[in-house]
């Protein structure tokens, strides 16, 4: 009676789990490879945004395969010794409950604490190497450099953000069971605000639906949309086309505005809106550049009293410039930089690994390797690929990785 709906309606089997077909398929075939005794990788790293169903899929699959789940999560101490005591012992023991087998769930590895969970990653790698049972790890963001070794020993399975339609489907199902009359409009708003986070959507539904027989759109007003669900396109337009400092600054009052995100958006779109006046563009960029100096100073000194100045410069400072072009409608775009974040990370990883090899071999730092040695190797490879290949071989650099650099 008092179980939260997210628990109450948690999928019991993979069949109940909405969408995520690809993840299901991969997970099933990996678990089946265990039953054949020959898994290619002993661990799965299941990743995806919050509320995409990572933990749910594991429990549902365990249910389907009749496996007992041994779980360690961020609320447990996860130092090397603690892990050794808990998980490492059980992966070698037989099941107590007469089930067919066990599955270890290392939940929330992105919650490993740098200070408290000392040596955890190395311990996990040892555990995976010695394990005789399947191990699944979950994380929101697997691209953190400290997970590099974990990635290498794991099969990566991505849980996608759910689309709005799927979220609405689930919400409708719940309303039916809870006997709540609800307008599809309400569900659509909840689904949109959840940005693919099903758990958040269900929580919102319960928050306004609990004890009610019907829900209206106004009932949603008590809830705060989760971070950054504001329409950035509108916000940027407000800033860039503002006529007074107040108009430009008004966006700062929005609840849960992610100002760092806004900074990227303004940087991205400023040149489009101001393209007609170089003078205005230069002045606006000057303001952005000053704002950035404050951000840098805040980072270094941790003195947050400087934040208001940065925020003002990046809004009012950008909006109120001499020679500002007259308003015209310009199509804005999502910040390239954020879009390319994962590609940048991959590239950087490849580059770093190559530079580390050169740095070690040639006794220089990675930075020097990048500007003083790598360019020559590139020229040689381009002009004389055969010779270039030999040098790469001598260095011990994989040619395919090298080529992906540019």
């Amino acid at each position, binding site marked *: *009676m*008092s*179980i*939260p*709906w*997210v*628990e109450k309606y948690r999928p019991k089997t993979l069949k109940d789990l909405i969408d995520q077909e690809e993840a299901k398929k991969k997970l099933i075939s990996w678990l089946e490879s265990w039953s054949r005794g020959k898994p290619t990788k002993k661990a799965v790293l299941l990743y995806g945004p*919050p509320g995409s169903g990572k933990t749910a899929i594991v429990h549902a699959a365990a249910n389907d395969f009749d496996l007992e789940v041994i779980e360690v*999560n*961020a*609320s*447990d*101490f996860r130092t090397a010794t603690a892990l050794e005591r808990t998980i490492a012992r059980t992966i070698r023991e037989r099941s107590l409950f007469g089930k067919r087998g066990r599955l270890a769930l290392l*939940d*929330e590895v*992105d*919650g490993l*604490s740098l*200070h*408290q969970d000392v040596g955890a990653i190395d311990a996990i790698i040892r555990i995976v190497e010695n394990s005789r049972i399947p191990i699944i790890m979950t994380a*929101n963001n697997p691209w953190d450099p400290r997970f590099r070794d974990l990635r290498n020993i794991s099969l990566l399975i991505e849980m996608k953000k759910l689309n709005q339609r799927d979220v609405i489907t689930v919400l409708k199902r719940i309303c039916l069971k809870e006997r709540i009359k609800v307008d599809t409009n309400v569900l659509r708003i909840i689904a949109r605000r959840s940005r693919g*986070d099903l*758990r*958040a959507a269900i*929580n919102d539904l*319960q*928050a306004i639906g*609990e*004890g*009610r027989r019907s829900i209206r759109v106004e009932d949603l*007003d*008590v*809830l*705060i949309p*989760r*971070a*950054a669900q504001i329409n950035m396109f509108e916000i940027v337009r407000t800033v860039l086309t503002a006529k*007074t*400092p*107040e108009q430009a600054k008004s966006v700062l009052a929005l*609840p*849960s*505005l992610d100002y760092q995100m806004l900074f990227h958006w303004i940087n991205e779109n400023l040149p489009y809106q101001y393209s007609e006046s170089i003078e205005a563009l230069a002045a606006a960029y000057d*303001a952005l550049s*000053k704002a950035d100096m*404050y951000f840098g100073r805040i980072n270094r*000194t941790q*003195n947050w*009293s*400087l934040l*208001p*100045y*940065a925020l*003002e*410069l990046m809004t*009012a*400072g950008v909006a*109120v*410039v*001499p020679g500002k072009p007259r308003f015209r409608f310009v199509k804005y775009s999502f910040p390239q930089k954020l879009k390319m974040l994962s590609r940048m990370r991959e590239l950087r990883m490849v580059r770093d690994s190559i530079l580390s090899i050169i740095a070690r071999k040639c006794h220089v730092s990675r930075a020097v390797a990048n500007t003083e040695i790598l360019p020559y190797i590139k020229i040689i490879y381009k002009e004389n690929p055969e010779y270039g290949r030999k040098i790469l071989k001598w260095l011990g650099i994989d040619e395919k990785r090298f080529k992906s650099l540019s």
Partner: protein
Amino acid sequence: MSEALWVEKYRPKVLEEMVNQEEIVSRLKQFVKAKAVPHLLFAGPPGTGKTTAALALARELYGERWRENVLELNASDERGIQTIRLRVKDYARTMALGDVPYKLIILDEADNMTSDAQQALRRIMELYSRTARFCLIANYVSKIIEPIQSRCAIFRFQPLEKDDIIERLKFIAEKEGVSVTEDGLEAIWEVSRGDLRKAINTLQAASALGTVDSRAVYRVVGRVTPEEIREMLLLALRGEFIKARECLRDLLISYGLSGVDIIRMIHSEIMNPRTKLEIPDEARVELADIAGEINFRMVEGADEEIQLSAFLAKIALLGRKYRIG
């Protein structure tokens, strides 16, 4: 006048009494009625009743036994990852007493918890959802990690309206036998904006000086009145530099302000759209940059006197550039 802190003395004990958060109150009452409380995140500016609401909810939910079923942790308690993994987890794990099958764990100022500690909280909220509910209180949602946001219903606490605050102040003043003038109430509103706690604290502090009028209010909060700031700014903008400097010196001394304080006040006065300074918008934006620069220098340890003079000097130069005065 009683000795106790008025904010505590007049804190509403039941949801009904809360000042002007009807929507939220009605939602919370339904939870109480159904005895079904989801994980909650109360978000909004200081002094909008978040903690009050959490405590009132607890009282209505558990009645007499509320103390036994509620764990309150606030910023001054240790709330690192250790505490979450040991104390909070242990508490959440054990059975509740009475007819509500779960306990309530209130984490005040949750946005000040380290992200490590927040991480440790995630799975506890799910695994022990039968025996415990969490109520997190935060000023900024964005400082709560996403996975926790996703596990909560997030309630928005709005800053209180002027009328509501003034009405409450009048109520308290009467109870305490304090005389308050109209401009005193105005001034309290001005310095506290939608923050009821600050408003009440200010009232209490100012009442120690006698009748609460605007002078008393600005005095106790150590804040220069907008007029004084404007006067000094105008002197500087008009190039009456030495006079502006003397004026600033007086303000610093008589209000006991530090250099950074005064810079911050001047800055907010400049950017305040209701301020009556007649200067072009571009100049105002430049002033913000100047204030930031000087503030930074002071933070880095530069000499306050010299930097404040430089600040006024820069303002004077601006005045010259835009031909003000």
